[in-house]
């Protein structure tokens, strides 16, 4: 495409609205406008210039802020819809049928549609991910489309601008003043005091400050992209581990997801605030709600398998003792182990007596370790008990057999064979909690004597190598928004035209009120023509007289 040459002699890229050097309006739109669009300095942007090929069309689609806002709003609405009912991961169900049943039972027809439309797993749905992908694309393309021309344009700007540029600024003034040279020298001095960078070029002043704030949006967009990259990396194996494990008191187990590391649970504690021990100020609250939990704590010892030993061997070395509490995870080698859940008082062992029914005399007692039951318990004196069947979570009879619904000893049941000197062939008995069944009338019985319980701690194991990338993304975003929002790019042009008239114009990317305040301050000490703000008709004229400090 051909270049556009300006009357000032500068060659501008095709599509330029305002001459990069002198600011003369070049396009029809710019020539006809009253106040010129200064957002990207009237530079040539790809999206506004090339519109024919398919790539142009995709580029233009994603570079549009209108489309960008549309995507933001779509993500916003989808997110909001996702909070109407609980999401999939908060629902106690595992199969699709159970989910469907859950939503329909609790929320009726609306719940049914919520499930069927996939809103119950909104944030993992393919189209939510597509929206996020489009958002990222839009951020990248829209930024590149703007930052490059803006940078070039600001770099090439000249101190003296053409009057047609000056006249099309939002803040503009012109008039004759008495001693131009002296006023200009004074203005230069004052502007420097206000920390402007001042450039002069025979009878023209350009005062500029905080240009870096113009880069803020692009910096914060970079931060967001870094964040998205971090999130994407979690899909790569090894970058991200998320596992859960239950560990009983006294147990030593390999840490799920952290090969080579072993954890011993030395005890789980749940502590409540009590009226006796808690501080007096909490008395009223504790009276009202009863008990409030103070601590969930698992005391653990972390071991590491020694170098060169086979996996699963007992060749361990101790790393450390640690008390895992909420907000204080155990940290080692990039892993974090969190206190997430607990179960109190799971049965650990059960102790039984073997008794003769008629005399109620005990032939001895034995203890069953429920996590590791033995086949035979020898009671001495020729008596023994064989365990023929063990049903840790007994849930009735199924197909003529006792049935255990899980391997967790919530409701243990046993089939024992009792061997005694009197009945050496043995008698069989089915024993469950508060229940005994016999096939035939037995002479002997198993009587429950005592039980021991223990607590179980639910831990989550995480390793996330992307955390630092995410943190970096957040940091860059913050730098970007602060740089772009807490400073403003301001420019003031003052120049004498060919007829000896003084023109004054000013521009800021935002916060016009403060710019006017600075202009008013400048006009107090320096003789300069009065200006108008063409977007604020309500502004009082007398404010500019310069003898009264109004905007304090």
């Amino acid at each position, binding site marked *: 495409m051909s270049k556009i040459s300006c009357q000032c002699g500068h060659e501008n890229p095709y599509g330029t609205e305002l001459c990069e050097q002198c600011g003369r309006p070049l396009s029809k739109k710019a020539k006809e406008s009253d106040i010129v669009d200064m*957002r990207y300095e009237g530079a040539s942007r790809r999206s506004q210039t090339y519109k024919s090929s398919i790539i142009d069309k995709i580029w233009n689609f994603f570079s549009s802020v209108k489309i960008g806002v549309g995507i933001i709003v779509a*993500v916003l609405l989808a997110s909001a819809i996702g909070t109407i009912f609980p999401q999939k991961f908060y629902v106690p169900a595992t199969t699709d049928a159970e989910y469907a049943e859950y939503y329909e039972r609790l929320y009726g027809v609306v719940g049914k549609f919520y499930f069927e439309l996939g809103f119950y797993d909104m944030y993992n749905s393919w189209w939510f991910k597509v929206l996020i992908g489009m958002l990222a694309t839009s951020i990248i393309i829209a930024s590149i489309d703007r930052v490059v021309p803006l940078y070039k344009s600001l770099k090439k700007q000249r101190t003296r601008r053409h009057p047609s540029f000056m006249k099309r600024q939002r803040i503009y003034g012109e008039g004759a003043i008495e001693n131009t040279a002296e006023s200009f020298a004074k203005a230069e001095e004052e502007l420097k005091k206000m920390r402007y960078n001042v450039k002069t070029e025979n009878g023209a002043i350009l005062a500029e400050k905080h240009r870096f704030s113009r880069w803020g949006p692009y910096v914060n967009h970079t931060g967001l992209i870094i964040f998205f990259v971090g999130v994407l990396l979690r899909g790569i194996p090894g970058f991200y581990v998320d596992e859960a494990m239950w560990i009983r008191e006294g147990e030593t187990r390999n840490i799920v997801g952290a090969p080579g590391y072993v954890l011993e649970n030395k005890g789980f504690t749940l502590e409540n605030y009590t009226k006796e021990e808690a501080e007096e100020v909490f008395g009223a609250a504790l009276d009202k709600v009863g008990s409030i939990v103070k601590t969930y704590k698992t005391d653990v010892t972390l071991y590491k398998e020694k170098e060169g030993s086979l996996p699963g061997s007992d060749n361990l070395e101790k790393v450390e003792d640690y008390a895992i509490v909420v907000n204080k995870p155990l940290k080692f080698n990039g892993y974090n182990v969190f206190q997430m859940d607990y179960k109190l008082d799971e049965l650990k062992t059960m102790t039984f007596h073997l008794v003769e029914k008629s005399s109620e005399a005990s032939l001895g007692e034995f203890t069953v370790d429920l996590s590791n039951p033995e086949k035979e318990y020898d009671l001495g004196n020729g008596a023994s008990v064989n365990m023929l069947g063990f049903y840790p979570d007994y849930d009735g009879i199924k197909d003529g057999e006792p049935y255990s619904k899980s391997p967790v000893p919530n409701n243990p049941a046993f089939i024992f064979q009792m061997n005694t000197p009197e009945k050496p062939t043995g008698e069989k008995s089915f024993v469950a909690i508060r229940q005994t069944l016999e096939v035939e009338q037995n002479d002997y019985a198993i009587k429950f004597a005592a039980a021991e319980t223990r607590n179980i701690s639910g831990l989550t194991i995480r390793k996330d190598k992307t955390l630092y990338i995410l943190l970096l993304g957040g940091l860059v975003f913050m730098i970007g928004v602060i740089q772009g929002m807490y400073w403003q790019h301001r420019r003031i042009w003052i120049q004498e035209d060919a007829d000896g008239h003084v023109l004054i114009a000013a521009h800021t990317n935002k916060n016009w009120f403060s710019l006017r305040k600075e202009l008013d301050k400048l006009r107090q000490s320096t003789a300069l023509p009065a200006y108008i703000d063409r977007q604020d008709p309500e502004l009082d004229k007398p404010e500019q007289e310069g003898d009264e400090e109004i905007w304090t």
Partner: protein
Amino acid sequence: MDLVTISSNLLLVSFVAYLVATLFFGGAIKKSKSEKAYHNSKWGTIGLVITIIGFLTHVGYFATRWIASGHAPLSNMFEFTTAFGMMLVGAFILLYIMYRTPSLGLFALPIAIIIISYATMFPREVTPLIPALQSKWLFIHVITTVIGESILAISAVAGLVFLVKNIDMTKKSKQRFWIEAVMFTLVLVLGFVVTSTTFKVLGYEAEFTYIDKNEAPAEITYHVPPLFGMNEYEAMTPGAMTPWVELPPIINAQRLTSLTWSVAAGAVLYLLLRLIARKPLAAVFQPLAKKANSQLMDEIGYRSVLIGFPVFTLGALIFAMIWAHEAWSRFWGWDPKEVWALITWLFYAAFLHLRLSRGWEGQKSAWLAVIGFVIIMFNLIAVNLIIAGLHSYA
């Protein structure tokens, strides 16, 4: 006097100070003829001084309560909402010093007063911290979020002044309807305060047993006469009113009852005010907003979003993610409160893009600022009370 009592008294002092300061800002507007006098008004300066005194006693409430309980008082609805009111006043003071506009004070302080009144309707006992909250991040995350939200809220106040001033109240229009709807909502909050206080003074209580949505038996206490009954309710308090209807288990009939009482009381209050004023409430406030410079209000609204947005991002997203990773093992879990923080953030991001690139200034921008405030309040009130999640501490 123990520290907790001192703390409550300090809060009361702030409350009164904000009321008095509102009157002075009103005086500043009434007494000034020109813009110049309006900006340098003595009344305005006195109003500012009283506001600052109120803010300092408010900070005193915060500090003494912190010392008494041993943790930052940001752990339940009362404490959080009170802090929000405090920071709203703080943000107002900051913007008043920058721009000197009494009309901002005339609208900002009453909103702060309503928010503090609302806060005091929640249980005010000092409670010990549950394990998830025992962290230095409680203070860092919550206070940053509150400051961010308060600064963003100021943009809604400026937007409100802009709208009350510029909407033609003599002709029927969509805008006139919606600005009046905003006024009505504010009156509804007062309705809630009035009913809660009345029944609290009367000491009303009615206990019920019911069957919850997981089909387990549960108990609940009503503090207002029960209009709606919980699923399969049975009255435990003799002589309590019999609810009109029994509701299905997914609806919390107790909260619906409170809401209904508040709406009813608010509606009556609104009708009374309309009868006295004989015109829409927005029209009553219009003369007070007339002297504000529209361009300036627009700029204050925009400026407060510019200042508040980074603070909100830092507190409600970045610090939140860091803490969530420490306490719950994941930095993001799509918990409703998290999602609504994200929604708030996306909304203001859209606001900024519409303003920067699509030129949405003036009325459009003012309406967006008001909607932003509605989203913040939704996250504060509705997400806690209606949508259950990890953040439901109240």
